[in-house]
C-alpha cells in the first residue's frame, strides 16, 4: 500500500512536469529540443544538490552545507584541471567531496549536536575553505567537460545533461539502496533507536550517508564548473532549492521515507516554472521572488503534512 502511494506521488509529479511542459509549449510555440536541452543543463547543479540533500534527509538528518561543499568542489576541480588535466582532477574532486561529507557525518555522530546545527557551522567552514582555495572566480574547465553537458548527441532527442544526472545518480544510488547499507540508511532514518536496537551500526550508517551526500555535492560542484567554465568560490542559491525539491519530491523531513527519483523530478518542475515565468516576460528578479515564494510555500506545506501525520499517529 505504502509502495503504491509512494509511486503514485512520483507519477503525479511526472504528470505535473508534463503538464508544465505543455504550458511552456503553449506560451512559446517554438520551445523544442533546444529549450529542453538548456532547461536540463541549468537544472544539472540543482539536481545533484537535491540528490545530495535527499540522502541526508532520508537518513534522518539534513545537510545545510551542500551548497558550500559544491563551491569547494567547483574551485578544487577548477584549480586542479589547469595543472593535472581533466580525469585526475575529477577523481580527486569526487574524493574531496566524499571526504567532506564523511567529516560532516562524523561530526554529527561524535559531537551529538543536532544535524542542522553541525551542518550550519560546517556551511561556513566549507564556504571559508572555498575562499581559501580560490579568492575570486578563476581556474578553468577542460573543454570536453563543457561539451559533455551541452547538446543531445548520446541519445538523439534527450539532452546529455539529463542523461548524465540519471546515469550518475542511478550508478551511485541503486547499488547502495539494494545493499545492506541502503537498508541501514532507511532503518536509521525511520527510527534511530529501533534501528540501533536491531543491530544497525547507526553511527557508521549516518556517517556513510553523509559521505554519499558529499559525493553528490562533488558531482554538483563539477557540473557547476562545467556549466560556467570557471570555479566559483561563493556558494549559489542551491540550499533552499534543494530542501524545497526534496520536500516536493516526497521525501519527508525527519527521514526514512522517499527515494531520489521524486526529488529529481521536483527539481525539473521548479526549473520549468522559472522558464515559464521568464518566457512570460517577467523581470529576472521578480522571477527570483516568485520562485523563492513557491519554495517557501512548498516547505511550509511539507511541514504542515508532517504535523498532520504526527497528530494522527498520536
Amino acid at each position, binding site marked *: 500500500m505504502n509502495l503504491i502511494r509512494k509511486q503514485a506521488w512520483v507519477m503525479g509529479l511526472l504528470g505535473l512536469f508534463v503538464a508544465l511542459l505543455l504550458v511552456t509549449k503553449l506560451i512559446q510555440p517554438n520551445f523544442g529540443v533546444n529549450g529542453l536541452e538548456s532547461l536540463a543543463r541549468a537544472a544539472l547543479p540543482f539536481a545533484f544538490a537535491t540528490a545530495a540533500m535527499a540522502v541526508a534527509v532520508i537518513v534522518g538528518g539534513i545537510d545545510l552545507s551542500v551548497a558550500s561543499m559544491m563551491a569547494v568542489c567547483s574551485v578544487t576541480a577548477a584549480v586542479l584541471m589547469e595543472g593535472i588535466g581533466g580525469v585526475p582532477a575529477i577523481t580527486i574532486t569526487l574524493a574531496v567531496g566524499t571526504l567532506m561529507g564523511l567529516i560532516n557525518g562524523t561530526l554529527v555522530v561524535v*559531537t*551529538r549536536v543536532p544535524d542542522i546545527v553541525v551542518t*550550519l557551522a560546517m556551511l561556513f*567552514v566549507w564556504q571559508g575553505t572555498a575562499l581559501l582555495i580560490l579568492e575570486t572566480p578563476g581556474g578553468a574547465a577542460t573543454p570536453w567537460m563543457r561539451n559533455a553537458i551541452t547538446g543531445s548527441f548520446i541519445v538523439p532527442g534527450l539532452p546529455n545533461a539529463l542523461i548524465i544526472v540519471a546515469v550518475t545518480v542511478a550508478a551511485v544510488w541503486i547499488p547502495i539502496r539494494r545493499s545492506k547499507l541502503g537498508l541501514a540508511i532507511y532503518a536509521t532514518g525511520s527510527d534511530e533507536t529501533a534501528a540501533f536496537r536491531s543491530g544497525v551500526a547507526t553511527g557508521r550508517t549516518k556517517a556513510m550517508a553523509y559521505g554519499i551526500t558529499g559525493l553528490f555535492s562533488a558531482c554538483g560542484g563539477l557540473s557547476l564548473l562545467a556549466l560556467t567554465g570557471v570555479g566559483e568560490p561563493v556558494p549559489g542559491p542551491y540550499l533552499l532549492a534543494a530542501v524545497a525539491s526534496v520536500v516536493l519530491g516526497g521525501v519527508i523531513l525527519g527521514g526514512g521515507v522517499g527515494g531520489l527519483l521524486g526529488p529529481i523530478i521536483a527539481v525539473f518542475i521548479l526549473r520549468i516554472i522559472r522558464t515559464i515565468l521568464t518566457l512570460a516576460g517577467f523581470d529576472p528578479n521578480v522571477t527570483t521572488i516568485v520562485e523563492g515564494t513557491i519554495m*517557501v510555500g512548498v516547505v511550509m506545506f511539507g511541514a504542515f503534512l508532517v504535523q498532520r501525520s504526527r497528530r494522527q499517529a498520536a
Partner: protein
Amino acid sequence: MSNTHPQTEEHVPPLLRVGRFLKDNPVIPLIGFLILLIGILEAMRPGILSPYWAGNLIKFAIPLAMLAAAQVLTMLTGGIDLSVGIVATAAAFVTATLTPLIGPAPAMAVAMAVGALVGLVNGFGAGIARVHPLIMTLGTGLIATGCLQVYQRFVIATGSDIPDILEWLGTGRTAGLPNGIFLFLPFAAFILWLMRLSGFGRLLFGLGSNETAAKLSGVRSWQVLIALYVLSGMIAALTGLLYLGMIRTPSLSLAVPLMLPSVAAAVIGGTSIFGGRGSFAGAIVGALILRVIETMLTLARMPEGARIALFGLIILLVTALYVRFTETR
C-alpha cells in the same frame, strides 16, 4: 554508566560541575577570556591598546551585539533568525533611498516596517506552519534579497541621503566613546528587562525549555512566536539604521557579513541553540570577543576565507562543548 542510582550532588563529575558553573554564569569566564585575548593582542602588536582603540572596538561591536540580541531571543525558543543580515541591509537601503523623497523620519519608519513585515512572515512560518525557523528565515532572506533588487530599480535615479541623526549616532564620539552607545544602552536595558523581568521573556524561556509543558500550561505558542520574530525583524532593522550611519554608503550587501558573527556571538555568550537558556550580557561580551579576534586575524593577515571558516568552527566547537558538559547521561 554502571550505577543506576540517581546521582547526588557529591558524585557530580568535576567536568560536569565546571559545565554547570559556566552554564549559570557564562559572563564571568567570558570576560576573563576577553581580557586574555586583549593581552595577546597587545603582545602581538605592542602599543595597540589606547582609549581610541577601545572606543573603536565598542563602536564596531555595537551593531554585532544588537543583531546577536535577535539571535539570543529567537534561540531561547530553539529557533534562529538567518534573515537578520538582509533585513538590516534592506532597512538601511530603504532609509537611504527614501530620505530624499519623503524625509528622514518617515523613511526610518518605513524601514522599521520592512523589518516587522519580514518578521511577521518568519513568525507565520515558524509559529503556524511549523517550518524549522532556520529554513524559514533562510527562505524569507532569499525572497527579501529579490525584493530589494527589484526595489533598487525603482529608486536608482533618486539618489541617496543619510539622515543626520544616524550619521551622528554612527560616526560621532562623545568623551571618547562612540555615540552609538546612546542607542545601545537603552536598547540593552530593554532587552535585559524583556528577558529577565517581563512575562514575554518567561514565555520565551518556557517555550524553549519544554514546548509541550508550556502549551499545556496555556501558552499559545504561535502568538508568542509571531511576536518574537516581528521583534527580531525590528531589532535587525534598527541595527541596519545604525550601521548605515556608521558605513555611510548604502549597498545591497551592507550588513549581510554581520549575520554569521551575530550567531557566533550569541553562541559564545552562552546561549543554547536548542532553546531554554540564553543571556544577552554574554552575547555583548561575545560580540566584543569576536571583534578582538577579527582584529587579530587582520593583524596576522589572515584571508577572508579563514575568518569565515574559523567563525564556523567556533560555533560548532562551543555548541559541542555545551552538549558534552551539560549532558546529564
